[in-house]
């Protein structure tokens, strides 16, 4: 397997030592089939044990290892040496406070996941001792939006979130939409009451950066546009004569 030395410029920041973040350079002998995460692991094992970053599965599913690679928010386990130039800049995900080195503070999105009511809401009880019937077509209506691994690359790409941290943001809205579109769920109006207001879908300016960077092809931008329509319909429904409101 061919090898190549990459110059990694890695953002370092220890709040106990540093007044502000700075870059540190590492020369890493890489195999072309490595992911950039492997190069970071090489640094950690052989060059500098003090470098901190999150990772676990190394198979594109746990969502831990999102970082900025040459300015793009990506999963480092899904970004390969073979596709990168000789110099690679590694930074923590944009739009989040830095906790330490490449580790960002996720409190804000964790709170938003909670707020969005990402669970099945039922008015009627579910069937007894067997599953709901759900056609393949009905599954397809929301399946794509279940693929979100919460890596938060979309928040790092979102220009609106960059401007206003009150914006609920792409991943959480896509997940809320996933439940709204699930034939087993009866909680759409409850959810839209929270999410179709000014911090919710209407803040999205439909740049679509979230969908471009999504490593799992979730397409949050489409979800948000569909939610705008749903939200508008819901608004009228709740104002019709005889509605519960």
């Amino acid at each position: 397997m061919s090898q190549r030395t990459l110059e990694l410029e890695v953002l370092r920041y220890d709040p106990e030592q540093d007044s502000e973040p700075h870059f540190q350079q590492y020369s890493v002998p890489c195999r072309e089939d490595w992911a950039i995460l492997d190069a970071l692991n090489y640094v950690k094992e052989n060059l500098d044990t003090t470098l901190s970053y999150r990772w676990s599965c190394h198979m594109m599913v746990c969502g831990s290892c999102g970082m900025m690679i040459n300015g793009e928010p990506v999963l480092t386990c899904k970004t390969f040496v073979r596709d990168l130039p000789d110099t690679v800049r590694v930074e923590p995900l944009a739009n989040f406070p830095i906790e330490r080195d490449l580790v960002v503070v996720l409190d804000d999105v964790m709170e938003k996941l909670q707020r969005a009511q990402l669970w099945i809401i039922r008015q009627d009880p579910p069937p007894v001792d067997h599953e709901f019937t759900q056609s393949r077509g009905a599954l397809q209506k929301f399946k794509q939006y279940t693929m979100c691994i919460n890596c938060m690359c979309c928040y790092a790409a979102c220009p609106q979130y960059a401007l206003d941290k009150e914006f609920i943001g792409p991943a959480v809205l896509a997940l809320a939409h996933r439940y709204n579109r699930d034939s087993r769920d009866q909680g759409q109006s409850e959810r839209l009451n929270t999410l179709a207001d000014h911090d919710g879908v209407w803040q999205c300016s439909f740049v679509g950066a979230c969908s471009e960077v999504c490593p799992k092809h979730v397409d949050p931008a489409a979800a948000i546009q569909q939610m705008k329509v749903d939200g508008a319909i819901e608004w009228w429904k709740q104002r019709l004569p005889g509605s519960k409101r």
Partner: protein
Amino acid sequence: MKMERIEADVVIVGAGGAGLRAAIAIAQSDPQLVIALISKVYPMRSHTCAAEGGAAGVKGADDSLELHFNDTVSGGDWLCDQDVVEYFVRQAPLELIQLEHWGCPWSRAEDGSVAVRSFGGMKKQRTWFAADKSGFHILHTLFQTSLQFPTIRRFDEFFALELLHKDGNCRGAVAMEMRSGRFFSFHAPAVILATGGAGQVFPFTTNGAIKTGDGMAMAYRAGVPLKDMEFVQYHPTGLPGTGILLTEACRGEGGILVNKNGYRYLQDYGMGPETPIGQPVFKTMELGPRDRLSQAFWHEQKKGNTVETPWGDCVLLDMRHLGEKKIDERLPLVRELATYYVGHDPVTDPVPVRPVVHFMMGGIDSNLNGETPMPGLFAIGETSCSGLHGANRLGSNSLTELLVSGKRTAQRAAGYAKETGRHAEDGAVTAQADAVVKGVRDLLLQTGDQSLAGVRRAMRTTMEEGAGIYRDEAGTRATCEKIAELRGRCGAIEVNDKSNVFNTDLHQTLELFNLLDVAETVAEASLQRRESRGAHQRLDHTERDDENFLKHSLAFRQDGGRPRIEWLDVTITRSQPGVRDYSGGKKE
């Protein structure tokens, strides 16, 4: 700095599938109970997310609980505790339906019911699946569902260090907040360990970086034995180089395994005769159990029948005959992983694969209720060993285990917590917690010439050599001695990073200590089980020996020495040990 003190009714360590299922069960059963859910990662990072193929539970009219029971017990080479298996197969379908009601996006059959697929060692189609991301969807469904319960108080990115106990009863745990380095003592009458497996003991594993046996090691250090640790499952189809799992569903859907001559070699290892390509037959050939398939690879390699690749010797997993449509519908992640990591698209190429460490059948000694020998301490999921899997786990039984054991143990633990009540602040327990903190502070001051990565690498190498697919007396003994030596070297590891903030140098050093605890039990139990059964194969004791070894091993920690092994009878209710038949009914 004073330690922060948290009071709860139940402490759960680990927020993967098992921990989340348990937390939800407690929250639903009694909203008065406060649950402290501790995890060193955010719950959705837990390794449950990496499970692909699916979760087993009887579904079809042609299937029965008895058949699932029989498959599990014979698959486990009769080392299963049959009372546990009976309960498991009964609850399995109910738990999978519960998950469906919570929104799990299971793949569907034409009629809109949940679809099931074939899996290794299973006589019927009973594996519920969500394409090939079943574990991911199960984990996220449980995590999102758990968000609605205010009594589940999460402590995300808290690194659990040790259990607290008094007079033989578990009283809580000590953990470190990773973002601040602050120490917290958690106090509760009931503690549930749900920390998953320990694949990182080995050099080549499907397990994520976080699978370092933390719960097993904490229990072991607190005097609780680890059971059946010699039984380490190699999954037969890992990607070379990275060890990334390619699910058994590849074969369940009809993929075949061939050697360098294009020959389906499994027929030479008691799993033939050959079945037609694309028409898999239950319990034979590619649908044999994982232990047998991984062992067959070892023999093929010895015979020189494997394919050389840049990442070492492999066999080929051929799925081309499934066609692009089926692969995209049923195995999209497999396609993506194989294409990205080894450059082989399964639609057009056979994919090189080799056996890879995947699952610990062994774990913290526990029973049907998740109770351990220490009152107040419970264990669930992969970190536990309830006796469900015996000497070899069947694929898709473990995702279901998370749910079944999670729920049942939660109820037991909640009952125990209510009966016992919260304890008043106690000087002896506080002193114990202080000692844990001092241990970590001393570690940060330790100096020496050993490196974390060096000791870890040496551990993994010796484990592969002495406790791999095939073992023998001399090799395994050498590994036991090597692990003891590496333990000694830990006293000279210097943690270079002194920061309080997200200090992964420190976390990884603590994880290494846990790995070494687990490693010594795996090696010692492998040495002392002088027979071959399931995933434990001895070149010098090639037969199963029911007279002497139809028993669980229990590894107890010994201060300053290698572990002590004791033996415990297996619970047999209705299936006496017999012959494992993977001839597809040809021998029956």
